[in-house]
């Protein structure tokens, strides 16, 4: 029992090191574990698939760099999907700390990978303060809220924006959200303007969005890196020519699986040692 007591007092930094090893090894040597697609992610994919070529998808980049590992792969997969379907993408951001730059990074990545054209296939309208006030005003006229795009070009001069006046001209709104912004897209934009809304969110926020989906307020939910890997899988299945492009969430899920095993081991091990020492104390 001395050993059990010693192990219970193990320095937490040793556990950190083991978690680090569990994370680094699969990054260096990917395993390629299979991805199982869940219904909430499939629902988003099918809704995008149902958009007609030329229709518009509003993609709100409501996150900053700290949420990039989870939400960047979602953005990439959705943008690739839209481009293959011929769906136009209007990007914007209502999240102050980095949203507009996340939008630029992802949209330019799409331009580099698949040759999508700024102003014709996609546009980045930039960031706007105000959250709910901006969302409500966009219901009347997008150009009132975003008179120019993120490059300073008046929206009237952007070919893609000539067909998009307000939410009536949007086939689907997708919010890639941290914080409360995803909820606002649902309980304000969907509820008051009747726009179909899907949310891609960080794992921390994901549970609350399933309630919105169950109540049919959201067409689907992409939750965390797992959800992103599922969307990557669906896009690769449907469009084999895109399968060769980077799939960072799928690679990331290898790491998730290994690290979860390490954490599970320590939870079970810690409890087993605790129970063993407690029994000894009771006997004494």
């Amino acid at each position, binding site marked *: 029992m001395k050993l059990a007591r010693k192990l219970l007092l193990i320095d937490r*930094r040793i556990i950190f090191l083991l978690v680090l090893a569990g994370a680094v090894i699969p990054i260096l040597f990917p395993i390629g574990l299979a991805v199982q697609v869940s219904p909430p992610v499939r629902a988003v994919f099918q809704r995008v698939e149902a958009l007609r070529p030329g229709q518009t998808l509003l993609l709100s980049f409501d996150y900053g760099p700290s949420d990039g590992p989870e939400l960047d792969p979602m953005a990439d997969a959705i943008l690739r999907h839209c481009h293959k379907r011929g769906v136009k993408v209007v990007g914007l951001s209502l999240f102050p700390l980095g949203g507009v730059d996340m939008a630029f990074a992802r949209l330019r990545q799409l331009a580099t990978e698949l040759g999508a054209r700024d102003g014709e296939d996609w546009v980045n309208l930039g960031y706007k303060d105000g959250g709910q006030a901006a969302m409500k005003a966009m219901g009347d006229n997008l150009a009132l809220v975003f*008179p120019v795009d993120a490059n300073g070009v008046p929206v009237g001069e952007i070919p893609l924006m000539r067909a998009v006046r307000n939410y009536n001209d949007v086939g689907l709104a997708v919010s890639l959200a941290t914080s409360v912004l995803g909820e606002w897209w649902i*309980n304000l934009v969907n509820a*008051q303007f009747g726009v179909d809304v899907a949310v891609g969110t960080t*794992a*921390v926020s994901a549970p609350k969005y399933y309630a919105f989906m169950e109540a049919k307020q959201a067409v689907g939910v992409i939750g965390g*890196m797992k959800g992103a890997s599922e969307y990557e899988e669906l896009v690769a299945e449907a469009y084999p020519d895109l399968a060769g492009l980077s799939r960072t969430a799928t690679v990331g899920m290898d790491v998730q699986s290994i*690290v979860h095993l390490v954490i599970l081991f320590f939870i079970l091990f810690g409890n087993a040692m605790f129970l063993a020492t407690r029994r000894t104390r009771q006997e004494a």
Partner: protein
Amino acid sequence: MQLQLPGIGEWMAAFFTLCIFSFLYRDNVLYRLAESIFAGVSFGYYIGLARLNTLEPNLFRPLFSDFAGHWPLLIPFALGLILYLRYVPKAAWISNWALAIYIGYYIGVNLIQRLHGEVLPQAKGTMLSLQVPPGQLLGNLVIILGVLTVLIYFFFSSPQRGPLKPAARIGVYYLMISFGASFGYTVMGRISLLIGRLTFVIHEWARPLVRAVFGG
């Protein structure tokens, strides 16, 4: 083939990432330095962003290009400036006017938004039919039971005795399952952040550095 060292951006990002990770060993001056720089840079970024993305296109440009058509914009502009009177003790009370309009607007928006967009649809979402196929019936029963028992648990106007006691107990189990799911997702989210940082450090900084120094 010429191999390039990581750029200054990669070096800085890797340095600050490692500074933050150093906290896992123990609190230290590098961690505090990175934390303070991050806070300062974030604030500066936000000011620049608000000026470039909101104030210039939505306020200054319309006012300077067509003042007659956009003069009402002076009203919110003035209200925004009035907020800063908080720093002038004798005139600080005037800032309450702007604050009152701001609070009033958002209370109005939130009240309707929450009731119309959340409370009513969510309540409707729990009013489920029991005349459905057996597979769906089980799911509907689980939802109905969960809603009722959790509501009973949070009903504090009478003591939880008699039939209310086991119902509240079931409500507690529902809550524990919900917290467990949230915690599991939280762990997954935090590991995702670790993956993001490690992927950057390995693929965009360490690997190019090793290749440039040692070749290969």
